[in-house]
């Protein structure tokens, strides 16, 4: 069969590319077709205008976009349109059941819950239907299991490294990568008719995009969203920047807790347009803001962990964490960024009562050549703490001190000694294989703060 040139014969039903042309054409079109349900209409409208035509729709089904848009904003008391597919369609989605099998999720977890995990708050703001409550639970669980693993296995890690390692294991970037590795695709645009096996999200609009009237750029609008609200605000930076305040006030990555983007205030002197507000007030309630694919993917993975906990037990989510997160490769020694390693090392030796560190050349070559190499070790008495090679004596000495510090910080007790708290407490008890709790050594962490 020849390929259907959908774009050719659908051009009439699509809105013109330039939104201003569409504006001009509106007042002259008087044809308003009475159509049964407004909800279906709005769906079709979104369907057509955002995505082009899907293959199932035939030419007769398609209503010209102009007519629809005239009908769509009807009575003011009408219920806002949903943009997420119904949970009733979940058992019929091939993508969902394939995902369920691919992740070997417990059979107690129904497909409907998996479908709900894929619904971001940006498409359905009702907390009973989106994944936000699951994601909150899942984030806490994943953060808890990761932090106990890190602290019990590497008891001397300093706080900034723990934050960075947490981010590397369960940060939003990693979880977004996991979503891709699991083969979960995102919707091109949200709607009720899309497959429930896709990640449902409304993307944040780029600042250069035009608003609905097509006359202003979004970045000039009062509701323009600030991207990356993880960044620390300047005033907060001045008030508190210590590690202690990050432990107490901030999230598990040492970042500021991200406030809901709805609260973000417009910049000073932003023009406030009343016309736009009055038109879109109903839409704003359902979908206040868009989100990024990374944030939505991360909340999907977190929500899945939360859902596994709710439908199974703590051991199920612990196994999930071990299989999918702790199995990832993270070389911890690459996370360190020392500024004054020699100073830190001498403070460490002072604290632990070792002899003060002394750097000595172990070997050298080509001192007078263009590419000299010195191998320097730092010794405390007769014990060699670390060794490093560099093209100058100073570089080699600093590298040696950094190596010594890394080996101190990355100390790990023998495997038989490590008992994480979740091995002992909680739901694992009922399986009968209870580990005996041993008090774990946790060092004071950083040498110089």
């Amino acid at each position, binding site marked *: 069969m020849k390929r259907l040139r959908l774009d050719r014969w659908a051009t009439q039903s699509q809105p013109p590319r330039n939104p201003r042309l569409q504006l001009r054409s509106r007042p002259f079109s008087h044809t308003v077709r009475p159509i049964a349900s407004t909800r279906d209409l709005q769906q079709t409208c979104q369907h057509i205008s955002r995505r082009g035509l899907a293959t199932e729709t035939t030419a007769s089904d398609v209503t010209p976009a102009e007519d629809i848009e005239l009908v769509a904003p009807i009575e003011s008391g009408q219920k806002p349109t949903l943009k997420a597919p119904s949970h009733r369609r979940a058992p019929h989605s*091939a993508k969902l059941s*394939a995902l369920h099998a691919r992740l070997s999720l417990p059979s107690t977890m129904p497909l409907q819950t998996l479908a709900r995990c894929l619904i971001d708050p940006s498409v359905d703001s009702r907390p009973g239907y989106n994944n936000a409550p699951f994601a909150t639970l899942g984030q806490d669980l994943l953060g808890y299991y990761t932090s106990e693993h890190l602290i019990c296995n590497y008891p001397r890690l300093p706080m900034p490294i723990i934050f960075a390692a947490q981010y590397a294991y369960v940060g939003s970037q990693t979880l977004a990568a996991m979503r891709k590795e699991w083969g979960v695709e995102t919707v091109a645009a949200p709607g009720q008719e899309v497959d429930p096996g896709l990640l449902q999200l409304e993307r944040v609009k780029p600042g250069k995009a035009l608003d609905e009237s097509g006359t202003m750029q979004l970045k000039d609008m009062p509701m323009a969203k600030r991207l990356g609200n993880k960044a620390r605000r300047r005033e907060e930076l001045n008030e508190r920047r210590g590690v202690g305040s990050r432990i107490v006030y901030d999230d598990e990555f040492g970042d500021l807790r991200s406030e809901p983007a709805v609260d973000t205030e417009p910049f000073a002197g932003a023009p406030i347009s009343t016309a736009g507000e009055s038109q879109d007030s109903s839409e704003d309630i359902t979908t206040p803001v868009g989100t990024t694919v990374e944030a939505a993917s991360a909340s999907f993975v977190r929500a899945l962990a939360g859902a596994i906990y709710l439908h199974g037990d703590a051991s199920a989510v612990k196994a999930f964490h*071990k299989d999918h997160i702790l199995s990832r490769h993270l070389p911890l020694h690459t996370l*360190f960024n*020392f500024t004054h390693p020699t100073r830190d090392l001498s403070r460490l030796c002072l604290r632990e009562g070792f002899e003060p560190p002394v750097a000595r050349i172990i070997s050298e070559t080509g001192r007078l050549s263009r590419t000299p190499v010195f191998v320097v070790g730092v010794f405390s008495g007769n014990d060699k703490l670390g060794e490093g090679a560099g093209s100058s004596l100073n570089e080699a000495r600093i590298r040696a001190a950094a190596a010594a510090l890394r080996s101190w910080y990355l100390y790990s007790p023998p495997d038989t000694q490590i008992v994480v708290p979740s091995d002992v407490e909680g739901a694992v008890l009922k399986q009968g294989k209870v580990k005996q709790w041993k008090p774990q050594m946790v060092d004071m962490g*950083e040498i110089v703060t």
Partner: protein
Amino acid sequence: MPLQALRTVAKPQNGLGAFILQCKRIDFHYCDWAGSSKGMNQFLTNNLAAFARNNPGVECTVSPRPGRHPVLKAQYMNGREKSICVRNMTPKEILEKADLLRNANGEKLRRTRKPVTSVNDSVRGVWSPFHGAEWKV
């Protein structure tokens, strides 16, 4: 100033913990009329249900492609697609091709020159001229 840390992303190691099959979807295209689809049509009626049951993690879709040869198209996690034309094949041969697509990882076929690849540094270390026995001419 406290110790600085660098943010990275932990690398995936598929199969070390959970194993995710890299084939995520196989499309079966057939033609009702053409003779080259005879085996494919038999496969769809007799064998496809069992194939899908044995591979629950792979999404199987069936769609007509009238007037063309039957094709298997597989989509992979890395975003690539592999397709095999199965014209005039028997259901058994088609099943073999479907298994081939299912077991592939989506990468281009290339010769592996080194049998072992690792994310870790060598345990033995890099050879250094400054260590070990001294060597003299």
